[in-house]
């Protein structure tokens, strides 16, 4: 199995993602430079966090026009698994692979802390290894995670079970108090209609070893790897 981690100018979670895949021993990992025009035979593409192109214009707005994005859009349209984390989620929104947009956090602050996530869909290709009833503890680190989408699309996301993660308290209650950024409906992560593209603001790659405070992120990467194996056999 081969994971490809995209490196834009300004990405800063690329090596963390690399390390997570290595630590979990899930397979081969390569970097995909933003100027590359192919995903180079990867089974999974990770768009990591950071500040691609300095967040100029809007987060993710310039990255989406990189040569590699054309290859990733084609890869996704052919069913390839893509996970965008934080800035990677913002890039997926700008590229139109996921619906909605990010606004600045409600309190205008960059927020960096552990949050709790209620897993709302355990059947997705990104979460099927998450234990039922387990509330995930994973850090966030962003200034623009205030998810917005119009009401029709929000209804569709609910009806089609595509809201994967919601910010919650440690017992899994989705409350206003547990919402760190003002995101609509406490949305922390969503998938596309076909279920092969996930965007999430929290950083699972920073939570794959217990000495980091949590290793709940491993459930997500193990789910992804399990999906690739299932689909190959």
């Amino acid at each position, binding site marked *: 199995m081969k994971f490809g981690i995209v490196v834009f100018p300004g990405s800063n979670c690329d090596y963390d993602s690399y390390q997570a895949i290595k630590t979990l021993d899930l397979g081969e990992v390569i970097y995909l430079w933003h100027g590359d025009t192919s995903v180079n035979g990867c089974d999974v593409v990770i768009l990591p966090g950071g500040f691609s192109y300095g967040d100029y*214009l*809007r987060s993710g*707005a310039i990255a989406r*026009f990189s040569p590699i994005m054309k290859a990733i859009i084609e890869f996704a349209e052919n069913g390839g698994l893509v996970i965008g984390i934080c800035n990677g989620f913002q890039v997926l*929104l*700008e590229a139109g692979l996921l*619906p*909605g*947009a990010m*606004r*600045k*956090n*409600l*309190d*205008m602050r960059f927020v960096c802390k552990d949050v709790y996530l209620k897993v709302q869909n355990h059947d997705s290709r990104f979460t099927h290894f998450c234990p039922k009833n387990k509330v995930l503890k994973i850090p966030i680190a962003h200034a623009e995670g*205030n998810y*917005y*989408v*119009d009401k029709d699309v929000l209804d569709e996301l609910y009806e089609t079970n595509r809201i994967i993660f919601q910010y919650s308290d440690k017992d899994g209650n989705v409350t206003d108090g547990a919402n760190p950024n*003002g995101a609509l409906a406490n949305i922390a992560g969503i998938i596309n209609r076909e279920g092969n593209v996930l965007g999430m603001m929290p950083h699972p790659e920073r939570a794959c070893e217990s000495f980091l405070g949590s290793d709940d992120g491993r459930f997500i990467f193990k789910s992804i790897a399990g999906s690739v194996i299932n689909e190959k056999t």
Partner: protein
Amino acid sequence: MTNYVVKIEVKFKPGVLDPQGETIKNALSNLNYSGIESVKTGKLFNVSLEAGSVDEALNIARDLADKLLANTVIEDYEVNILR
């Protein structure tokens, strides 16, 4: 072909919360301006370009706004010829 300077203003759609605008409004209130009801932020782009006519220049500007300068999920834009 003529050179035109096109002004493209990008602003949040009505109903989309503008946290920067809210924060600035609060700051203005702290400066003892009492009558400020709301502040909305936006972005301004002046683009110099070659086009065959005013209409063509405006069409190019709309295209730029649709494709890159505005995120039409949350933003509207307005184009005008500056000169």
